[in-house]
C-alpha cells in the first residue's frame, strides 16, 4: 500500500463561460498522504473550490478536466460512472460550504444520513438507523433520535454542518474533502466544527483536505498546507514551515495582510495591491507577478517551476523570500 492516497498531477479544470474559457485550475500537482490533513488556502477565486469539485467529478456543464487524478492507484479520470459511484461515499466524501444548501430541504435527516450506507454498505434499515445515531453522537449532535426525524430547517447552521460531516463519514471514507466547511457558519461555531473535523480525521486515521480562504482555519489543524493563487499552486509544505517561513512572495504577502492578535492597533495592514488576474486570460509568466514587489523581467515572461526550498517544502517563485536580491531560483 502506497503512502500516497491521492496524486494530482498537472490538473487543469476549465469552465466555459460567456466571457471565454475560465481557467479555474491550470496545472496543479500535489498529493495527499494517508492519514494526513492537507490544507488548501487561497483567496476567493483562486480555484480551490473548482479543484475540489474537479477531484469529486462534480463539474458544471460545459467544462473539461485534463491531467491525472490517481486515487489509491485508480485513475479517477478514466473510470466509468458506475465505478466512480463506488468511490464517492465509501472512498472519497465531501463536506460543502453551506450546510443550508447542501442538505436537501424537503428530505428528513434520517434518509439523507442513511441512504449512502444503505447503498454502499448494504446494511438493513434498522442497522443504518442505529449507525446513524452513533454518527450523530460522534459529531456531537445532541438528542440524535429526535434530530433523525427532523428536516434540515429545524436545525441550526452549526448542527446542519455537523450532520453533513456525519453524512460524509457514514461510509467510512479514506479521504474527506471539506470545501470551506465553516465559511457559512457563525464565528463561534466555526471553531467547534473545525476541531470536530480534525478530531474525526485523527480518530479515524482518515485523510482530510481542508479548503479555506482563511489562513487561521488551516494553520493549526493541518499537517501540510498548499497555497493556491489564480489556478496554480504557489507553495506547498509542512504547515508550520509554510506559515512560519513562507517562501513564495504571494504567501508572505498573504500572511502579511492577515491581522493577528499581536497586531498593533490602528497600525495599517499590509494589503496586497491590485486584484486577481483575469481567469480567462492569465499572465504568461508568474501569475502573481503583476502584484509582486519583487517581480523581475523573468517573472513576467516565464512560469516559475515548483522547486524545493526546504525539507518537503516547495515554492514556485523565482525570488523566494530568503533569497538575496537579484538572485534567481529554479533557472
Amino acid at each position, binding site marked *: 500500500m502506497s503512502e500516497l492516497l491521492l496524486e494530482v498531477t498537472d490538473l487543469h479544470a476549465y469552465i466555459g463561460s460567456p466571457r471565454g474559457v475560465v481557467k479555474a485550475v491550470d496545472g496543479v500537482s500535489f498529493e495527499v498522504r494517508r492519514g494526513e490533513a492537507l490544507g488548501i488556502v487561497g483567496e476567493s477565486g483562486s480555484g480551490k473550490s473548482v479543484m475540489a469539485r474537479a477531484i469529486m467529478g462534480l463539474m*458544471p456543464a460545459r467544462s473539461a478536466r485534463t491531467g491525472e487524478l490517481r486515487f489509491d492507484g485508480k485513475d479517477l479520470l478514466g473510470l466509468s460512472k458506475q465505478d466512480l459511484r463506488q468511490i464517492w461515499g465509501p472512498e472519497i466524501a465531501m463536506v460543502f460550504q453551506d*450546510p443550508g444548501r447542501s*442538505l*436537501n*430541504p424537503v428530505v428528513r435527516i434520517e434518509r439523507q444520513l442513511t441512504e449512502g450506507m444503505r447503498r*454502499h454498505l448494504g446494511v438493513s434499515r434498522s442497522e443504518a438507523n442505529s449507525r446513524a445515531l452513533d454518527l450523530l453522537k460522534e459529531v456531537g449532535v445532541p438528542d440524535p433520535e429526535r434530530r433523525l426525524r427532523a428536516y434540515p430547517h429545524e436545525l441550526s447552521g452549526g448542527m*446542519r454542518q455537523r450532520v453533513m460531516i456525519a453524512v460524509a463519514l457514514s461510509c467510512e471514507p479514506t479521504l474527506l474533502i471539506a470545501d470551506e466547511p465553516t465559511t457559512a457558519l457563525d464565528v463561534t461555531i466555526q471553531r467547534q466544527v473545525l476541531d470536530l473535523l480534525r478530531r474525526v480525521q485523527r480518530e479515524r486515521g482518515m485523510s482530510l483536505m481542508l479548503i479555506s480562504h482563511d489562513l487561521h482555519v488551516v494553520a493549526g489543524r493541518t499537517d501540510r498546507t498548499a497555497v493556491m493563487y489564480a489556478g496554480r499552486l504557489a507553495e506547498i509544505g509542512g504547515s508550520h514551515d509554510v506559515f512560519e517561513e513562507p517562501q513564495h512572495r504571494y504567501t508572505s504577502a498573504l500572511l502579511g495582510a492577515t491581522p493577528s492578535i499581536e497586531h498593533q492597533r490602528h497600525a495599517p495592514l499590509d494589503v496586497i495591491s491590485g486584484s486577481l488576474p483575469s481567469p480567462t486570460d492569465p499572465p504568461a509568466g508568474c501569475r502573481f507577478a503583476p502584484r509582486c514587489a519583487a517581480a523581475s523581467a523573468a517573472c513576467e515572461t516565464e512560469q516559475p517551476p515548483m522547486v524545493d526550498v526546504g525539507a518537503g517544502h516547495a515554492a514556485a517563485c523565482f525570488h523566494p523570500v530568503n533569497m538575496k536580491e537579484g538572485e534567481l531560483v529554479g533557472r
Partner: protein
Amino acid sequence: MWADLLRRAGYALLVILLVTIGVQALMSLAPGSVAEVILGENATPDAVAEMNAALGYDRPFVVQYVDWLLAALQGDLGTSPITHIPVMESIAQRLPVTLELAVLALVIALAVSIPLAVLSAAFPNSALDRGINAVTSAFLSIPAFVAGPVLIFIFAVSLKVLPALGWVPIEDGLGPNLRSAILPAIAVALTEIAAFHRVLRADLIGTLREDFVAAARAKGMTGGYVMFRHAFRPSSFSLLTISGLSLARLIGGTIIVEALFVLPGLGQFISTSIVQRDIVAVQGVVAFIAVGFVVINMLVDVGYGAIDPRVRRTPKAARRTRAGVTRNATGKAVSA
C-alpha cells in the same frame, strides 16, 4: 394560523361576490332577455315586459342581485324559467362529466409531461431535449377543435377502436365510460403538456445545480435516484401551481371539446344558457365555478405544504417559497 385561514376565506368570499356581481351586470347589459326567448320572436313588447316583470327582472339590479345572493347562500341557485329545472340539479347532472374530463385530461397531461421533463432535464440542450421541446411545442399549437376531429378520425373512423361521440356515464361501467372520455380528454390535454413540460424542465435544471444534488452525487447515489428522490420534489412547485390553474380552467370551460364530442357537461350547459339569456342558470353555474376555483387554489396551497416541510409551519415561509426563494433560502433565512 387562524388569522391566515380567516383572511384566506375572506378573499375567497370577495372573489365569489365580485364574479357573481360581474356576471349579473354583464347579463343585464346584454341585449335580449329570457322572456323574448320563451315567447318567441313574434311576441309583442308588452307581453315581453309583462313576462320579465313576472320573473322579477324589472326590479333594480341591486335588489335582483341581493335576492339571488340570499337564496344562493342557502343553497338555492334558483330554477331556470326555460326548463323549469332547478339550477342546482342541472349542475349536479353535468358536473361529473366535466369533472371527469378535466381530471382525466390533467392526469394524461401530467403522465406525459413529467417523464418528458425529467428526460429533458437529465440531458439539457441535447438532441433529445430539443426533440421533446419541438414535439410539445407542436402539441401546444394544435387547438382542441383541430385535435378533436383529428383524434376522432384516427381512433373512431379509421381504427374504429373508440367511440366518436357521446358520453357513457360511469354508472354504466368504468370501461365504456373511460372509452367515451379518453379522446376528448386527450384533445384537452395536448395543449397543457407543453406548459407542464417547460415549467418542470426549467425547475429541475435549476434544482440539479443545487449543492444538495451535488452532495447526493458525492454520496455515490445513481442519477435516477438523485433525480427522483432529491431533485423532483423541490422542483414541483410551479408544476403544482399551473396544474391547479389548469384544472380550475378546465372545469370552467371545456366548451369547445364538449360541443365537439357531444358531451353533456357544464360547458355545454353554460353556453346554451347564455344564448337563451337564462340569467338564473348562468349566474348559478358561474357562482359554482368560482367556488370551484377557490377550492382548487386552497388545495394547491395545501399541496405546497405536502411538498415542502418548511411551508407547513409558517404561512410566511409559504409565501416566500411560492415567490421562488426556496432554492436561495440559506439556513439562516429560514431557521428560527
